[in-house]
């Protein structure tokens, strides 16, 4: 009676017998001891890449018996140069985490998620998609991702195959404002040659917090060479041990500082006139504009004294071209303020005035790898969609390829966007106000999330499709630009832990078939990879063996100023494109959108070295560091706290027009009095992420859903909050 109809988890081979294993091997302890020590249990060395953050450093995964055993930085990868950061080591825990997505899931009518088969998931999603496209057209569908190599190939092709132009990336909450400024000014975003620079200014960017191993070693090298380092940041960040001077600037006024520095170069005739003459347009208009931006004016705006501004500008000019304002990433002007795009333009132009472009110690446009692509005769590519990407007309200056991802929830609320795919993206917590996202995604007919964990975005989706983690799958070949370009491969290093997950290439291929556009997905990942390396004269076997191969014939040319990728081919101090879009042709002072008054503060945010946005928050060992050191606390200036009777580690309420949060406070002298600062990694609300849930709060809850006028970015620092002690 006890034995029910068995659905045994294994099938017996006809010769199956327990006699095949000795009693000693049945003893786990003795088996482990001998298996661990077994010389034949070869340790495999698999070169691959980290996915702990967007740097995607090269790494060597050592495995023993199919499991991870040790990690090292890949010596030949341009970003790791032999080293991984702490979160890169810690993030590998994800592979074996219990809180991974294990199987496709569907949200049922009662709001609960139920596991379903892949066949059912593909069929239902495909059918729904076809229905939506038939009724509302392909432009009612969008795809959003934080791009990784396979997504760059498959996700972009998938949305295009559907006939939709609506492809978007995470940059709207990262560096789109900066890039909008740089792109229209010097035609792209170069990298500062930190190691060889003699004078480096960082604006908001902190190598000690948003770590990339190669950047840290370049800065260490620069210091060894005697470089002067200035940090401009309302917070004395963790790059400060390298810094000669910290300028605690009023948040949101970096633009004024840079305009005043430009003013000094012009007033004292310290700029590189030869470079301007040969490689720039619109300089006279710019000169006229910056005449008003005196250091004395800037002192009132920024809080940095005029003499300091003059000294720094003069010192940088004297050391040009080996002086540089580092290009930053999200930093202070990636997506933060109403004026961030103008700050991007001003920073790019100040560097141009130093004549440091393509000069040692200055700004270097790196060489690109020049990967190949699939042969369209063999594998027909989908046509470019007829429609214009949604958001492009509203934000014509924003980087075209990446688009403005927050258009998707806006249009969803307007009833125009009906379906969205989110791949490797927690947009609902990270890109814009979470409440707004929740309302908007609930309006849609179809939301699909493809990810490794049950994120807040996944919890707003009709279907959740699980990917294996980054070390359990092969990815598309990737090119890394730089001084010497490299070709890189992320490849499967360990056995798949959850057998019912599928990598993105398979997911998009099956989704395409189910949606009636399978004819564009007749290639395999290996077909693509072979095509990608073909022009490089490298075989996939070589790349698999080495993982990262520097391309010695693809080097940045130092000393030769390139033609700039702008309409004029020159550095554009005045931009017709900006004027055509309804903005000033030359960078102009724009005050921040909001100002703290009467004891309120600007809420600012930034990274900690042990986390990557919210992506790593559920990694137990990284979160343990947070807990051990109370890293989720709100930073507050000590004197300001005193005025409000707040003491260190008190519980405080942080309230804005959008939300109210409680958190412990950290009092410090390392912060400008007009701001309070919250690390950007906390405030997870997904109940499925039990390590992270309930720790700290998300700054994004306080950010109103709004768009930076030039780039469409989220303006994450345009938030005013009140802070009060919570009574016991």
């Amino acid at each position: 009676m006890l034995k029910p109809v068995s659905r045994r988890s294994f099938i017996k081979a006809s010769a199956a017998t327990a006699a095949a294993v000795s009693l000693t091997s049945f003893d786990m302890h003795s088996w482990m001891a001998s298996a661990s020590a077994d010389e034949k249990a070869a340790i495999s060395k698999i070169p691959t890449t980290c996915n702990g953050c967007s740097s995607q450093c090269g790494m060597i995964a050592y495995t023993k018996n199919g499991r991870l055993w040790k990690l090292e930085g890949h010596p030949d990868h341009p970003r790791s140069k032999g080293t991984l950061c702490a979160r890169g080591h810690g993030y590998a825990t994800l592979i074996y985490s219990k809180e991974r997505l294990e199987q496709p899931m569907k949200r049922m009518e009662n709001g609960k998620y139920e596991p379903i088969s892949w066949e059912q998931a593909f069929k239902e999603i495909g059918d729904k998609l076809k229905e939506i496209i038939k009724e509302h057209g392909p432009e009612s569908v969008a795809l959003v991702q934080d791009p990784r190599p396979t997504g760059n190939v498959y996700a972009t092709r998938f949305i295009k195959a559907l006939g939709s132009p609506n492809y978007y990336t995470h940059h709207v909450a990262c560096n789109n404002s900066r890039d909008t400024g740089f792109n229209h000014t010097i035609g792209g975003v170069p990298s500062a040659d930190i190691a060889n620079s003699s004078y480096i200014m960082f604006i908001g960017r902190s190598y000690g917090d948003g770590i990339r191993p190669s950047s840290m070693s370049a800065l260490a090298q620069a210091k060894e060479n005697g470089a002067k380092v200035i940090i401009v940041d309302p917070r004395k960040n963790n790059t400060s041990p390298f810094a000669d001077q910290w300028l605690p600037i009023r948040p949101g006024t970096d633009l004024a500082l840079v305009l005043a520095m430009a003013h000094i170069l012009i007033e004292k005739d310290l700029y590189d006139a030869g470079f301007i003459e040969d490689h720039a347009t619109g300089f006279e208009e710019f000169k006229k504009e910056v005449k008003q931006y005196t250091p004395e004016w800037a002192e009132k705006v920024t809080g940095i004294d005029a003499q300091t501004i003059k000294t720094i500008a003069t010192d940088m000019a004297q050391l040009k071209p080996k002086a540089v304002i580092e290009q930053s990433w999200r930093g202070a002007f990636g997506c933060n303020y109403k004026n961030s795009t103008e700050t991007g333009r001003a920073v790019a132009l100040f560097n141009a005035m130093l004549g440091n472009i393509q000069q040692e110690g200055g700004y270097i446009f790196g060489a690109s790898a020049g990967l190949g692509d699939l042969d369209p005769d063999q594998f027909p590519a989908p046509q470019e969609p007829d429609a214009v990407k949604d958001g492009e007309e509203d934000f014509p200056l924003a980087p075209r390829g990446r688009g403005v991802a927050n258009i998707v929830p806006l249009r969803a609320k307007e009833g125009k966007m009906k379906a969205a795919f989110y791949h490797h993206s927690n947009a609902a917590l990270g890109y814009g106000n979470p409440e707004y996202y929740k309302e908007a995604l609930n309006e849609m007919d179809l939301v699909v999330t493809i990810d490794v964990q049950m994120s807040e975005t996944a919890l707003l989706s009709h279907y959740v499709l699980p990917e294996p983690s980054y070390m359990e799958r092969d990815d598309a070949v990737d090119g890394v630009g730089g001084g010497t370009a490299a070709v890189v491969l992320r490849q499967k290093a360990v056995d798949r832990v959850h057998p019912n997950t599928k990598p993105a290439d398979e997911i998009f291929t099956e989704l395409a078939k189910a949606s009636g556009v399978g004819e564009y997905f007749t290639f395999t990942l290996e077909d693509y990879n072979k095509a990608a390396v073909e022009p490089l004269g490298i075989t996939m076997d070589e790349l698999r063996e080495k993982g990262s191969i520097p391309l010695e014939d693809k080097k940045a040319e130092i000393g030769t100023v390139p033609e700039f990728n702008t309409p004029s081919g020159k550095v554009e101090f005045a931009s017709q494109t900006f004027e055509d879009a309804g903005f000033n042709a030359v960078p102009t002072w724009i005050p921040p959108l909001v100002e703290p008054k009467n004891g309120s503060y600007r809420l600012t945010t930034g990274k900690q070295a042990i986390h990557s946005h919210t992506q790593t928050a559920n990694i137990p060992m990284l979160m343990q560091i947070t807990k051990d050191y109370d890293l989720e606390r709100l930073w507050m200036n000590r004197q300001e706290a005193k005025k409000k009777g707040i003491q260190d580690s008190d519980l405080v309420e942080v309230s804005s027009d959008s939300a109210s949060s409680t958190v412990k406070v950290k009092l410090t002298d390392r912060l400008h009095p007009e701001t309070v600062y919250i690390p950007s990694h906390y405030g997870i609300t997904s109940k499925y992420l039990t390590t992270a849930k309930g720790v700290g709060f998300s700054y994004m809850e306080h950010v109103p859903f709004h768009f930076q006028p030039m780039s469409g970015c989220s303006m994450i620092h345009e938030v005013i909050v009140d802070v009060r002690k919570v009574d016991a």
Partner: protein
Amino acid sequence: MPDHMKQRDLLLFYAELYKPPGDAVYEVISHPDFRTELEQASGAALNDCCDLPSLSSLKEEFRSLFSSSSQNGISLIESFYKPWTTDQTAALPFAQSKGMMMGDPAWHMRYLLEEIGLNSSYDPMFYPDHISVILELAAFLLEEQETDKFTLLVSQHLNWLDDLVEAIRKQKKDSLYLKLTELLNKFVNEFTICNQSFDRLKEDSVC
């Protein structure tokens, strides 16, 4: 002398119990003789329990307790309850941490299944150290009359049931799964105490 075939059936019943419930397992637990037979086969008494839920309630209870699609899903995977590896040469920051998948137990179980010739047909439930797989292997060993190996397997791969019982108790005190897991734990405990194992093994290989 214990009845090995009854114990085999007991294990196969439990192997089914820890999979999403269907008609077959429900038929067993709703049978009037279920409790008596269960107690007989396990040699232990079932703690008093709740009323028998309907099949749909049982399905919901299973989902809310164990499914990865429910928040706080309780793991039915052995590795989760033990340090990830005892291999001291593993140079990973999480090597000795608990709460992870594919730890040493999974690796050992996979080895055993492969060597014995028990191959995985594709099944999303198929994690080598999922409780159902361990129970099925244990049942197979009884069928094969490999009692020493059975004792080793049960005492080493099911010695985490105290933690499982606790995890269920924390979430639902009046759960049928709690009472049944408590009984399984009592049964298993008989084998984790060396001098009570029914086919005594050489002391140094178990204790």
